């Protein structure tokens, strides 16, 4: 297992006695695409900030890429193997020029000066932003900003990439841009951990970890988690559009063969049903 967590508990200093995380177990294999799904305040962001030790583990155990997150000497190495893209594209730039910002991470790991510009260029190419080296981040669109932030992470070639609600503040086009790159990286063998409350973004994942009030409510394939109405209700989420439609059609006495998750699957099911009438 690339990520192995047991009984993780966490409470914020200002939170009184309430726990932000309660007995969370976490297992993620190399190359997996995991979506951590939950409403606001479910603890999903708190959980992933443990993976790169931005938050200190208070209770429980957590190993990421064989590194114990409590080992302060290795935290720095851990962060090289486990990169993170944040929610707000405007709040994560360190430099006023794209290439300088991407170089920031490389400089932190004392990558030799003569390698830097080559790695910056190839990172930009991987997020399909070649040619933007000299641009100022604040002149880019939301989706482009997130892709630059991602390039800053990719330049260090991490095994795990965490997207901490990285699409929440983008317009539909920007979201599509980021999701496309996310899927491409997954295909290239990266381990992807995406935090979101957009159920549609979790559909493509290998595994969904459903969180609510600091606990893991369920962990399983999109098919088992997203089509379970009681579970979704308990998590205070609304199921994907095709799932809702599937159940509402059942109410009207129309039983599709199986519960679809994507728009394409839905259309396929409907066509099949129609051909049988």
């Amino acid at each position, binding site marked *: 297992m690339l990520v192995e967590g047991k009984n993780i508990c966490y409470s914020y200093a200002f939170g009184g006695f309430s726990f932000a995380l309660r007995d969370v177990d976490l297992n993620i294999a190399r190359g997996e695409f995991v979506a951590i799904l939950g409403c606001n305040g479910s603890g999903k962001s708190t959980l992933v900030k443990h993976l790169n030790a931005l938050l200190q583990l208070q209770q429980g155990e957590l190993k990421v890429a064989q590194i114990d997150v409590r080992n302060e000497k290795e935290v720095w190495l851990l962060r090289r193997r486990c990169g993170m893209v944040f929610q707000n594209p405007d709040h994560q730039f360190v430099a006023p020029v794209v290439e300088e910002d991407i170089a920031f991470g490389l400089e932190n790991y004392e990558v030799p000066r003569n390698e830097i510009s080559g790695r910056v260029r190839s990172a930009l190419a991987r997020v399909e932003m070649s040619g933007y080296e000299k641009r100022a981040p604040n002149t880019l669109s939301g989706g482009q900003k997130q892709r630059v932030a991602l390039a800053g992470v990719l330049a260090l070639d991490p095994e795990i990439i965490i997207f901490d609600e990285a699409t929440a*503040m983008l317009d539909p086009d920007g979201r599509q841009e980021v999701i496309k790159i996310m899927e491409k990286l997954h295909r290239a063998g990266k381990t992807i951990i995406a935090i979101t*409350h957009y159920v549609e973004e979790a559909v493509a994942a290998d595994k969904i970890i459903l969180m609510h009030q600091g606990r893991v409510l369920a962990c399983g394939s999109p098919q088992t988690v997203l089509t379970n109405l009681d579970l979704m209700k308990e998590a205070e989420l609304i199921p994907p559009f095709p799932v809702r*439609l599937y159940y509402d059609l059942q109410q009207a006495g129309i039983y599709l063969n199986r519960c679809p998750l994507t728009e394409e699957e839905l259309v396929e099911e409907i066509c099949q049903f129609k051909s049988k009438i």
Partner: protein
Amino acid sequence: MSIQIENLSFSYLQPSGEKVDALKNVSFTIETGDFVGIMGPTGSGKTTLLQLLAGLRLPTSGRIYFNGEEINAKGYDRNRLRQTVGVVFQDPEYQLFATTVEKDVAFGLKESGLSRQEATDRVRWALETMGFDFEKVRNQSPLALSGGEKRRVAIAGVIARKPEILIFDEPIAGLDPFGRENFLQFVTERNQTGTTIIMTSHNMEALAEYTKHLLVLKEGRLIDAGATREVFTRLKQRYNGAFQTKAQRIAILLAEGKLMFSPAVVTYGDLLSALKQELTGGGRG
């Protein structure tokens, strides 16, 4: 309060010294009690338009009339304008500043001429409308609240002035499904009591289900305007892909598979009832 916009344009200078036209020659009318959605990609001029509508920026050219009076004319009373229009920008939680929730919400009532008692009643009403227990929350520091609560306090501070026009910039961005539903319910109620609502959003479903009229901006130009349903239907034909609801996308896919459908499917409800009809052989609806 009816709003009339005539040939509105707004330009500003970029770092390179080049001029950017954020809005180009936009004209439209909004009737009293309407619920208007504004859509368009980031950078299409939505926020600028809202700022102009609230009288917070001066247009480069063009005019804005409220009930026939031009709001940027010399004699127009600024206080009256502020009283008429309430604006909730993105991240409204970052406008709170007072030591207690009550004081913060009452901030906008200073110039209103209300008596002390009336002002307190108004603050109570606003906080209760936003789902708070007034007695419990009034003496709390706004900074100690959760993000979602702060946002609701900020909105309470705007509705406490009972503006005739309520403007929201991306109010549901970043909200989870229940937060989104609650907010949209709340705005609909305000709209039903006669408040004109103007709201930008990237969420096609929310716009399709809740708004009455739509304005569509692209690169600073108004590319379509009209009744929500009609605009969505027109946009489907003009711009393949962008500006579509999920129900529309599915309807198109079904049509490609030689199955149904009326081009009028825009919302979830439309799709559901159309499907029911289609799949039960046109019997029950």
